[in-house]
């Protein structure tokens, strides 16, 4: 295999790229300015050393704990539980949420071998026991897996005296949080529904 074929193969493994668009990108890189290519290679090569999951909340950060966890201006009685680190960015960017976050690392799906043991529920319980949380917003995706994960959280936190709500209307059924536009999300955070038993 020559260098070009290797590059195309590697690019095609990125989500959303097929063989066609991968080869278009590869030819684009061959023709683009070499300084740009060096910067890109450097950025890709070091991304995992520079950015890692926050040891407290699990979202991506360059320093540990992350700026959100350290931010004294945030409401420490409020926790928003999400599936993925990128969901933290989406909700933080909506501008209508000022509490802390917790990343589970996915949603419950036995079909894909993801049971409670594979997600960060333990860290969550520890934070609840040691912190001063009064309210939790469950922002798992509006999918069967997200629903089941929300139900599991409710079951897990029974008796902890924490008000629970679930992001509700506006999100497309079966859709991903990542793609929800900001306005819908902002509305959804305001219109969250009570999820306590």
């Amino acid at each position, binding site marked *: 295999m020559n260098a070009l074929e290797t590059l195309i193969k590697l690019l095609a493994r990125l989500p959303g790229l097929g063989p066609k668009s991968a080869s278009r990108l590869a030819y684009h890189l061959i023709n683009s300015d070499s300084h740009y290519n060096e910067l890109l290679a450097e950025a890709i090569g070091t991304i995992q050393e520079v950015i890692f999951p926050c040891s407290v909340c699990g979202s991506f950060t360059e320093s540990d704990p992350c700026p959100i966890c350290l931010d004294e201006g945030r409401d420490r009685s409020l926790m928003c539980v999400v599936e993925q680190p990128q969901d933290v960015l989406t909700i933080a960017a909506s501008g209508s949420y000022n509490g802390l976050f917790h990343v589970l690392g996915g949603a419950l799906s036995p079909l894909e071998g993801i049971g*409670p043991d594979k997600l960060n529920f333990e860290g969550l319980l520890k934070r609840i026991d040691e912190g001063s949380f009064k309210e939790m917003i469950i922002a798992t995706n509006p999918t069967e897996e997200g629903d089941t994960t929300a139900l599991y959280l409710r079951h897990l936190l029974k008796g902890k005296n924490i008000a629970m709500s679930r992001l509700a209307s506006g999100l497309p059924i079966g859709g991903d949080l990542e793609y929800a536009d900001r306005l819908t999300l902002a509305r959804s955070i305001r219109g969250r529904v009570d999820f306590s038993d």
Partner: protein
Amino acid sequence: MKFRSLGFHNFRNLEDSLIPTEAKHVVLVGSNGQGKTNFLEALYLLCYGSSFRAVTLNDVCRHGEKNFSLTAVVEDEDGSNQNLFLRYSDAKREIRIDGKEIKDRRDLIYNIPCIVFSHDDIEFIRGTPESRRRFFDQTLSLYDPLYFDDLRRYRALLKQRNAAIKEDYIALLDLYNAQLAEVGYAIQTRRREAVEEFNAIFTPLYNKISRGESGMKIVYKASWDECHSPSEIVTKLENSLARDMRQQTTTCGVHRDQFTLMDGRVNFSVSGSTGQMRLASLIFRIVQIETYRQKGKKSPILLVDDVLLEMDTERRGEFLKELSGYSQAFFTFLPEEQYFAKFDNSSALIYSVEEGRFVGQ
């Protein structure tokens, strides 16, 4: 709704062309293997994104090709036009309505209501309980998007529950039980209503066309028959846990519901003759049309493929007389068949089909 034209490229044995279809009845006449059913298949693909035959999209490309495309102009009830486009290439399907790409199949299937009469329909009568369950799921989904969603959700939850059993995630079973009970109860209730409505049309119509006095009807036996609320279903699921663990699957639920066609006290799937079963299967479809017309408040498009052959002239006449309530219908016939009684020249477009070519009569 009405197809005004249908165009195809690289599709099965059909010669690349654009065929006008602007008539209430479109009749395709030709010997077997000339392309009549392929034409209907193309229409169906534009309505639902998949074939009514058990094939993949790769199989419907012309021999030796790896892509195909279909186009159609459809006239809506209000007289406006809609442009449909389906392309399959690079093993990917792309569907557009008026240029806008359709991502979720749900947005497609409620666009154009279309009902096929196919040779395999006899399986609704002769086949297993699953085949009749499929018929009722289809009938309900056609006019009720909520039922379609419930069914999709139930299947997803069932798969997860079965996986939880296999992977030994017992702590999760309570959660799946609660969700399955909720959505399963809704499905069971809707099915019970649907069977009652079905029988109210089916029994008298079968008697009329067959000139008989039988009490033919569907008997619905739900797996959770004795449960009258989601919480009773949860209890039932909890009680069947030991058996579920032993068999490594969910042993009760709406996926096990039974629909039996009874002729008095006799199971018609066993006792009926081929001719009777064919007739019954045609009436199943007529009931589907009628139900859709009443509930969906729209008239469907019909694709009638080679299903009249096994019936005598008299029954065939009766059947065609009862076939109504549609906005447009496509029929296939063999050259030697008599079919013209129903289709006078003013309402019908007649094509003879030979080796994938369509010639107007």
